[in-house]
């Protein structure tokens, strides 16, 4: 967690924990704040899941139910002590989330939220119909938590427990987001393909974030059960799940403190509306949902980022200036000489999209330590060839070999593990993350700290090395002045350079650059050419797609020319310059 985050959290903690000590705060308020705290935990999970990870869930209430029912059954039927049930509650929720996650996280786009609606309904009816857990009546008589010998029955007592849980969860979540695993999660929304090509296991990152969010919900459920001392299925139905999502959206999905703000707004509004609305309509009923529904729609129409960013803007002076990064101690470099002389061999690669043949029987080689250019008019199949080599697309026919091993059919992640790095024609950076963090994603495979190490901040030594490496590569591409800016704020040419730095962070033996010089000025192009030559000198091989002919001709050892998916020429730059087929392809007629 950066120091600015730490300061903010300390201020927040002081305010929150001082509140119940103030004698003039009525108990009723304290009770409300307990509910806000419990809801905050669930909303915090959703912020991570929806706002950061880009996965929408309407079904979090079911996980709250898992946590609550587990402790309810264990304490009432088996006489367990409430504190002992906490790990079991979390484990049940975690296992349930893992099982559901294994099935639903794979669902892409809108199928995931639809899936969450389905299992939200499913578990509500299950809770309501299982006799073991009291069916529709639920379970009552749950014992309170004890602190040493003191039962925590009053709202003031449980308030402290709940808000300590919230504060710890915030700290853990902030740590997680700033860790190696967390960067993978943050890259999910805007650059899953790029993350995958950097070696991030996207599916696993999604599953982790899903289980993490469920665990927070399970913790909320455990607290809820011991605060209410009873559980009923109605507290975990789909409408409540939608309310949790509303909290995350109101607060600003994607902002950790937005979760608490959103939870506060929804819980307080619900309280006020439950008193006020029946007076308007003349009889009882949960009319607050009218307001919530309208609010949700209006919010989406007016300000899709929620309220938190507007408020956070006023506090921005809290965030300090980032400290300079010492690049002396970096990650260990891999061996550049292990591979045989023939590094990459593409043999008769063909790619069909339905009836269209995008790449037709293309063969070429990239020897070790060479720079090979891949050129051709628009639509010639250059980027498709890149996607075939890096596993983003599968070949329809043909083979691709790398360092003596067949690699067609491998996933982008497996190919990244073989130290093949790439950039993208259409830049794929996470716009909300800093350049440094984006580049650090490239080093994902070179670190090993897991989720737990990230949450508990046990990963600092490795993190320092990862950031040293990222900063070093950023300096190499000449972006050191922009290191701490958000990637989305850079000019397009600079974003391309950031992608090159990210690719270099993978410690590649083969580097694939897709139009790296587009959008660069003359001097920047010269600097880039010098960098690529230097990489070759260090033993790296480069495959390059580029439209700037001067750039290609001065830099490459060999050139492969594609036209309409077919290779029409291959040879040294000087030969290609004179080749009639090439001239015809570019100019239309033979000169």
């Amino acid at each position: 967690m950066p120091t600015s985050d730490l300061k903010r959290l300390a201020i927040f903690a002081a305010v929150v924990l001082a509140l119940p000590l103030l004698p003039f705060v009525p108990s009723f308020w304290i009770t409300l704040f307990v509910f806000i705290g419990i809801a905050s935990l669930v909303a915090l999970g959703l912020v991570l899941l929806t706002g950061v990870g880009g996965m929408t869930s309407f079904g979090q209430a079911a996980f709250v139910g898992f946590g609550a029912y587990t402790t309810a059954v264990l304490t009432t039927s088996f006489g367990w002590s409430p504190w002992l049930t906490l790990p079991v509650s979390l484990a049940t929720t975690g296992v349930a989330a893992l099982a559901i996650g294994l099935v639903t996280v794979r669902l892409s786009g809108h199928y995931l939220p639809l899936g969450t609606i389905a299992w939200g309904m499913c578990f509500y009816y299950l809770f309501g119909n299982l006799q073991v857990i009291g069916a529709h009546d639920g379970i009552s008589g749950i014992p309170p938590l004890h602190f040493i010998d003191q039962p925590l029955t009053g709202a003031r007592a449980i308030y402290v427990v709940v808000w300590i849980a919230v504060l710890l969860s915030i700290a853990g979540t902030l740590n997680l987001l700033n860790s190696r695993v967390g960067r993978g999660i943050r890259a999910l929304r805007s650059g899953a393909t790029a993350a995958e090509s950097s070696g991030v296991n996207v599916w696993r990152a999604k599953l982790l974030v899903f289980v993490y969010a469920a665990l927070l919900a399970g913790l909320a459920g455990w607290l809820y059960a011991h605060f209410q001392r009873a559980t009923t299925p109605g507290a975990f139905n789909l409408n409540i799940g939608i309310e949790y999502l509303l909290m995350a959206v109101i607060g600003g999905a994607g902002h950790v403190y937005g979760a608490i703000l959103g939870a506060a707004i929804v819980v307080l509004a619900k309280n006020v509306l439950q008193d006020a609305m029946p007076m308007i309509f003349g009889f009882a009923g949960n009319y607050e949902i009218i307001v919530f529904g309208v609010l949700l729609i209006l919010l989406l129409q007016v300000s899709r980022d929620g309220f938190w960013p507007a408020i956070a803007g006023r506090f921005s002076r809290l965030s300090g200036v980032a400290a300079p990064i010492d690049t002396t101690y970096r990650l260990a470099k891999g061996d550049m000489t292990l591979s045989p002389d023939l590094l990459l061999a593409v043999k008769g690669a063909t790619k069909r999209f339905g009836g269209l043949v995008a790449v037709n029987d293309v063969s070429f080689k990239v020897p070790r330590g060479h720079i090979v250019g891949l050129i051709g008019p628009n639509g010639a199949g250059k980027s498709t060839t890149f996607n075939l080599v890096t596993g983003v697309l599968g070949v329809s026919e043909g083979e691709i070999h790398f360092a003596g091993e067949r690699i067609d059919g491998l996933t982008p992640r497996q190919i990244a593990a073989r130290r093949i790095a790439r950039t993208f024609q259409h830049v794929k950076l996470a716009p909300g993350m800093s350049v440094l963090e984006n580049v650090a994603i490239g080093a994902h495979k070179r670190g090993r700290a897991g989720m737990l190490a990230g949450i508990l901040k046990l990963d600092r030594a490795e993190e320092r090395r990862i950031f040293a490496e990222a900063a070093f590569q950023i300096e190499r591409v000449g972006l050191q002045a922009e290191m701490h800016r958000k990637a989305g704020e850079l000019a397009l040419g600079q974003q391309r350079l950031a992608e090159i730095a990210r690719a270099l962070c993978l410690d590649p033996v083969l580097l694939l650059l897709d139009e790296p010089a587009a959008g660069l000025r003359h001097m920047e192009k010269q600097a880039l050419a010098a960098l690529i030559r230097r990489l070759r000198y260090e033993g790296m091989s480069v495959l390059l797609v580029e439209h700037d002919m001067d750039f290609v001709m001065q830099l490459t050892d060999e050139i492969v020319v594609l036209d309409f998916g077919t290779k029409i020429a291959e040879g040294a730059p000087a030969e290609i310059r004179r080749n009639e087929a090439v001239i015809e392809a570019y100019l239309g007629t033979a000169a």
Partner: protein
Amino acid sequence: MFLLQDGVTNGAIYALLAVALVLVFAVTRVILIPQGDLVAFGGLTLAALETGRTPGSVWLLLGLAAAATVMEVIASRNRLPPGRIALNALKMALPALVIAAAVLLLAPLQLGSIVNLVLCASLIIPMGPYLYRTAFQPLADASVLVLLIAAVGAHLAMTGLGLAFFGAEGYRTSPLIDAAFTLGPLTVTAQSLLVVGATLALLLSLALFFSRTLIGKALRASAVNRRGARLVGIPTARAGSLAFTMAAAIAVVSAVLVAPLATLYYDSGFIIGLKGFVAAIIGGLAAYPATVAAAIGVGILEAFSSFWASAFKEVIIFASIIPILLLRSLRSAHHEEEE
């Protein structure tokens, strides 16, 4: 066999819902969760009209129209001269006002079932385009996910309003045709035959509409590619409005068919809608014939599971969607949606 008949009847109604969902999704990318609410409101409106009460949907329609009018005025306030704005506002508000006036006048007179049907249809159908104008048109360019959250919001609001305007009691209407006859070992009610027949007729006419008429083709075009459709001159906002109108019309048909078969409450729509939804998803939110087959399947599954394990009926139905979703996403694993 009796279960099968029950299942097919229910399935036919789910098929109508599912087709409406697919239609709306294809044209506007909105997953229309409130479709079920429209069905419930249709049934409750009909029940109120049968007993000569003024249906609460009058106020709902007026409320939606008022919101739509205000939004229309705000949206065009700096672009058009005041005269045009007033005209547009009038165009937006007038249908609702006329219909509301007619219903308020005619409802107490109890003019018979045909008039009731007409009144019910004219109350519910305009809700479709008004709903589109207020909730979804301003979000037309948002992602499917945002539209889905908005749809859930609309559903929440409509459930609450349903409670406010229709009350908490449930109603069932008298069947349109009250007859039953035996067919071998089966007793077939006329209403269930009507359900299946009407569903088939409606599906057939929809198929013809999409393949033969220019508007149908335009709707399909805006379904495939919004921007492309706009470039060739198809007004996509109007296409969205039309799709919602058709969905609301289908909701009225479903309501008329289902209201005599089951007691409807203000919040029944969600469950009915979700089952149509299960079918729509099995059909991939795209293919009409597959959707209809799936809906019949859901109806049959429901009939059998309510017989064998009635308490877990809903659990079984909603659990059945997950393996299907999984299959779908595995098959289309390479078309990842990125923001």
